[in-house]
């Protein structure tokens, strides 16, 4: 476990150094200006430097010792991740093409399948209930502007 905890901080620090670098390089392109007449780029450049510094310190801390983190890392749940992410993607894609009702159903159905104990039947029941609730609450009660059901032909024109 020890080796893994050390590498966690090194990765985290490295990500921040990288973000800082991108901000720094792009920020310079916005025009730094002078201190009396600050341009759009000064604050990004300063933040880029700060992020790089903090990232380097975090990474260094990870190399030197493993003291900073005592949390245990739970195992990765790839099935759950895939279900949740595709649930949202399905909401966007199907919502764009067919409207709210099918989008809501597929979002809940797909994401519910990610749970270890879920079955197709339990996910379908939950999805039906939640879709009906969402239609009543958001479309009817709150009047959210989202076509409940539409044909894909209107895609692009709406």
């Amino acid at each position, binding site marked *: 476990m020890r080796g893994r905890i050390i590498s966690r901080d090194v990765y985290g620090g490295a990500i921040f150094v990288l973000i800082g670098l991108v901000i720094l390089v792009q920020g310079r392109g916005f025009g730094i200006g002078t201190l009396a007449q600050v341009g*759009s780029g000064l604050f990004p450049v300063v933040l880029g430097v700060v992020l790089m510094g903090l990232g380097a310190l975090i990474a260094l801390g990870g190399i030197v010792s493993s*003291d900073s*983190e005592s949390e245990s890392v*739970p195992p990765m749940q790839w099935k759950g991740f895939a279900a949740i992410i595709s649930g*949202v*993607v399905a909401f966007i894609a199907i919502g764009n093409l067919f409207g*709210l009702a099918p989008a809501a159903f597929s979002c809940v159905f797909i994401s519910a399948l990610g749970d270890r104990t879920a079955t197709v039947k339990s996910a379908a029941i939950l999805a039906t209930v939640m879709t009906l609730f969402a239609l009543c609450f958001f479309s009817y009660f709150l009047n959210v502007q989202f076509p409940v059901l539409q044909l894909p032909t209107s895609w692009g024109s709406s």
Partner: protein
Amino acid sequence: MISAALVDLWHGFEVALQPSNLMWCFIGVLFGNLVGVLPGMGALAAISLLLPLTFAMKPVAAILMLAGIYYGSQYGGAICSILLNLPCHPPHAVTCLDGYPMTQQGRGGAALGITMLSSFIGASFGITEMIFFAPILVEFAFKFGAADICSLMLLGLLSGSTLAKGSPLKGVAMTALGLVLALVGTDVNTGQHRFTYGIDHLYEGIEIVALALGVFGIAEFLKSVNNLAPINTKYTAVSLRDMKPTRSELRRAIPAAFRGTLIGSLCAMIPGTGPTIASFVAYAAEKKISKTPERFGTGAVEGVACPEAATHSSVQGDFIPTMSLGIPGDAVMALLLGALIIQGIQPGPQLVREHPDIFWGLIASFWVGNILLIFLNVPLIGLWVKLLTVPYRYLYPSALLFICIGVYSSHNDLFAVGETLVIGVAGFVLIRLGFHPAPMLLGFVLGSQFEENLRRALVLSQGDLTTFVERPISATFLAIASTLIGAKLFFHFRNRSTKATPLSGLAKIVQHV
């Protein structure tokens, strides 16, 4: 001064007791309580979920409802930690220490009753403090120039970021990342597009709703799916009658609650210490002055009353800088300010004068809301207990749907949903690497104002950086900020050499939450 405050407060009650405002406050505390009870959900998720709904509401109603969600979820979280030993919200970690043993001994209901009573005592004191302290702070804040505001924000950001659990260095890094995210969009001074990469949806910047629901919604689900420990519902049979504490329990709990209140309000005044630290300090102090310290950890009522009162008085104290200076103390406050900004109201010292309805209405609604909560919690305790057992496999898909529709409804735009997903996945990666997302929101909300004031200060001083240390107010803030960093470093290195201090042991518990 005092009589003026009382007149204003009277006006505040008139605002808070208007039927429509009262209704929103009620909806807020009800929903907050409900979500706070649900396993794996907390105040941040609850507020983020309802944030899109507030866009169409009047500012006063919106802020009353959001504040209601906040303290409602605190009550809900207390139920969760006492009956299930699951602290959903960090300050409640201490409440578990004695609350859960009380549950195991069949006194869980009494622990809940004591919690409600102590929270109310703590909150009431905090509110009173706010009534008299905030206007003084506002008068003082009108003297601030751009450089002073800038230093104050730096202090606020630093103390907010070191507050979060985990390593302070990572907290500061996340705050800086929040500042970077606030850069995205059109620069108000020059009209230049920054970090938009040609995507016109980003010209107006990243949506605060997308950011909040990404990191407190989607990222949390990714973290918890199939990883949530099974819930032990053995002790959750609590009825209304069980909630009445015995006379001897009350005799021990009430003085403890008052001591906790004092500790909490002191902690609220020191930058860098918030509700979580207040609750730990209160618990440690109560144990120290107790004649029977060995009872602590085995179900001592004082161990429940004191930290709960400290938490709530400190939470109310946090509203003081948020509402009077526009500097949020933590992510929850940042979300509240974000909601105000969306409504077109600029937070800051002018808020009290320009929008007395919001300021005094909010203060009055704290009391109204807390009383509503007691009325809600006493008869509904059976329902809350049932909610504790809702399985996560029903919860997260439903909440995910609400997130999608909520984010969509803020601009009737599916792009924002995609934005939320990207932020959520990125946030999850950072959570896995041990970074906590709350400070990021603080940086995000203050980001544009921080840059704006920095630029203005430099223009006024004609590019002279010494303005930040030459102006006495600014210099004071910077001095406090450096003291804060120094203290953090000192404790960091001291804890490393002597591992077995009692506070570091408590800090370990926080990290596990």
